[in-house]
């Protein structure tokens, strides 16, 4: 086993199948590869470029310098490409910094007044800000009444296009309200033109519409939406990264981490008393021994009759197995947790180890009004600020996900697949300055898989599933 491991490490790329599991987004790609794609001409997207050849180290040749500058030029061109909106399918959103509010026409007296007031008191900024701060609370209430999340900050009056199937919430006035991450994502991909509202700008425009006509730049959008309603760059990186791949994401209840924060210390104390590693297991074992008086370890572990049955030269195999079962059953003295058993007490999760996104595969039929059960649950973790979760944090996180036992004919057949699937699972998205790694953590029930009950090894399953190969350059 050790030999095959080493072989895999020493020649990772010799295998012809090795390139299958290389992920192009793993490393910076040569932007020259983008030149082969034609963007301006039409929307047909060519297939993505193959991995470019890279050199080992710089040398002073002109040849290398030329390639490098061509790469940089290609990168410059690709990044300088503007976000354009053809007038025929331009979707315009209006930024609402104070949260959801009914349209001015519905509440003419109040809304118009505030708009005018804003314009009048424009030079005195202090007054202005207090006014908006006062407005914030009613806006929240209004948002609840309108059936729109209170953190929504952009509304679209002419929602058209496929994105609104999975993004945004409509209010009574047929406007779709977008959460900050949704608005920023749509703007970034060039599908939404967000305008500054008149109330945010200093110039008194025509006060019939809230639209000042000034398109929000990407820079302004980041400034306005990041940090708004719990959105930070780590969460946004995960959101856009998965959206780009076609997944549908919605906020999970765990997004809002103002609740349950007081319980962190209690959990830590619990962990400390249990202790990590082997000592902890041993301690629990000793406790279990003392707790259960009818312990098989107290008496003779293996009965006399069983000894004799071993000695018998030719026993019916059926009988033999049942006797062996008895031995193994008596040997299983280490307690284990059945994930299917109902929990007496559920520990509260602590941020950041709590589910913040529900993720749906592109193939899952999704309705905004009644989202189905999530395909994946994602917790977002900042790699620079967070250590490896404690056992208590991890099990609290897993307990917060629904029971999803392995099922299906393949799962029933293959033991390793069952163990890998687990009974509950959660995905940790670890983010380091824009680089995201996804880890899947599952609650595997080893205790439920009694190996001694299997009918002997199957010859064709000796090798197991292919192990992931070491990759890299």
């Amino acid at each position, binding site marked *: 086993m050790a030999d095959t491991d080493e072989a895999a*490490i*020493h020649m*990772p790329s010799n295998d012809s199948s090795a390139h299958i599991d290389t992920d192009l*987004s793993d490393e*910076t*790609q040569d932007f020259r590869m983008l030149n082969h794609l034609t*963007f*301006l*001409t039409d929307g047909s997207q060519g297939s*993505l470029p193959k991995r470019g050849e*890279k*050199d080992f*180290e*710089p040398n002073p040749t002109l040849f290398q310098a030329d390639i*490098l500058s061509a*790469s*940089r030029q290609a*990168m410059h061109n*690709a*990044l300088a*490409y*503007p*976000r*354009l*909106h053809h007038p*025929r399918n331009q979707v*315009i959103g209006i930024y609402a910094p104070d949260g959801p509010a009914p349209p001015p026409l519905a509440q003419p007296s109040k809304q118009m007044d505030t708009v005018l007031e804003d314009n009048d008191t424009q030079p005195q900024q202090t007054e202005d800000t207090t006014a908006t701060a006062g407005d914030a609370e009613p806006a929240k209430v209004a948002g609840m009444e309108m059936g729109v999340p209170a953190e929504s900050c952009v509304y679209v009056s002419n929602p058209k296009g496929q994105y609104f199937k999975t993004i945004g919430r409509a209010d009574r006035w047929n406007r779709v309200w977008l959460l900050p991450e949704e608005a920023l994502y749509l*703007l970034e*991909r060039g599908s939404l033109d*967000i305008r500054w509202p008149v109330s*945010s*700008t*200093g*110039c008194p425009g025509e006060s019939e519409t809230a639209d*000042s006509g*000034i*398109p*929000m*730049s*990407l*820079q302004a959008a980041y*400034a*306005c939406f*990041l*940090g708004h309603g719990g959105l*930070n*760059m780590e969460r946004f990186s995960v959101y*856009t*990264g998965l959206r*780009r*791949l076609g997944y549908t994401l919605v906020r999970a209840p765990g997004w809002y981490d103002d609740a349950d924060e007081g319980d962190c210390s209690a959990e830590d104390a619990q962990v400390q008393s249990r202790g990590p590693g082997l000592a902890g297991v041993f301690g629990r074992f000793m406790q279990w021994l003392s707790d259960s008086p009818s312990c098989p370890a107290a008496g003779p572990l293996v009965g006399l009759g069983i000894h004799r049955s071993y000695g018998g030269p030719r026993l019916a195999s059926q009988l033999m197995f049942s006797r062996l079962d008895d031995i193994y059953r008596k040997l299983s003295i280490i307690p284990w947790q059945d994930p299917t058993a109902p929990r007496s007490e559920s520990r509260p999760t602590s941020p950041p180890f709590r589910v913040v996104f529900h993720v749906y595969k592109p193939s899952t039929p999704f309705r905004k009004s009644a989202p189905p059960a999530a395909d994946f649950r994602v917790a977002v973790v900042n790699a620079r600020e967070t250590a490896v979760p404690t056992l208590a944090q991890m099990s609290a996180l897993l307990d917060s996900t629904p029971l999803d036992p392995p099922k299906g004919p393949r799962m029933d057949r293959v033991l390793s697949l069952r163990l890998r699937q687990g009974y509950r699972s959660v995905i940790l998205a*670890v*983010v*380091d*300055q*824009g*680089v995201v790694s996804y880890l899947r953590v599952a609650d595997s029930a080893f205790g439920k898989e009694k190996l001694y009950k299997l009918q002997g090894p199957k010859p064709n399953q000796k090798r197991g599933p292919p192990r992931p190969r*070491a990759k*890299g*350059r």
Partner: protein
Amino acid sequence: MNTEPNLPIPISHIAGSYFIFSIDAVTYLRREHHICGVLSGTLPQIPQQNVFLGLPLELMAEEARLLVEKGVACIVDEVNVQTDGMKALMEADRQRYLQELQAQGTQVMQMQASRKEQQREEALKKIEEKKAANAAKKKASQPPPPQQPATDSTTRDDESVVGLFAGDQKQQQQQGSDQSSSRRPSTATASHAMGITPATSHSLLPLEPSAKHKLPLPNVPSSYPLFAHLHSEGYFLSPGLRFGCQYLAYPGDPLRFHSHFLVVSTGWHEELDLMEIIAGGRLGTGVKKGFLIGGADETASDHESREADVRTFSIEWAGM
């Protein structure tokens, strides 16, 4: 591409992260200061993939600090710049800005329209040529061979015959261009201008951030001296999460070179677990990189000598 942006370059500090939105600044910092950052935005031209990403560029706090210490950049509180800037916006500025965008949008629209027209003409031309070639082939080949693959050589042979139809073709082309010229103004008037979402707010807000919006030096992790040391040696550094380390060190621009080292910073008097070194060494060798640990002598008091006192060690799995 070789434009030099105005120094210092403003680095936007938003919700705890550092961003650059100007493409000129991004290329300049990459070319002149070996600062790559991580592109974290969606490329609008191919939005459904994660291989090539676009603006904004997210900088590590270390990168931002390094640039500020070099005097190349300054940290700007972008949220307040935007809100205050918009509040202070004058009507004249607004009009000017909108006209600017309108002009740009019209220009792009015209460019696209003319390109489309060009493509249409090319396509038409191709179709005509094919037609002509087919017709000529039928005429020229008296005893018609049942199926002759139209290779390049045959079409070239037929070119002289195509000449017969040249006049006809020209006429058609003329017609085509007439049509296009009559159509172009109508489309331009019908659909005015492209809407544009600019990447930066530079032409709307004052370019120079006012002093009250400037922020102090970014807080950096304890690995900063090692970062600065490797950077001063000419390495390009990027976040190391993919390989389970702190930084990846590239000998040249990551666009063209593979990384050489997995970098982990340690304290000067920190006791290391031998297992970590073996794990790092094995991992590094497995992905054809060296495992590099290093740190600064904390006993040195002032910043200058601390940077000079960084020591680094490269560890390789010998596999003996």
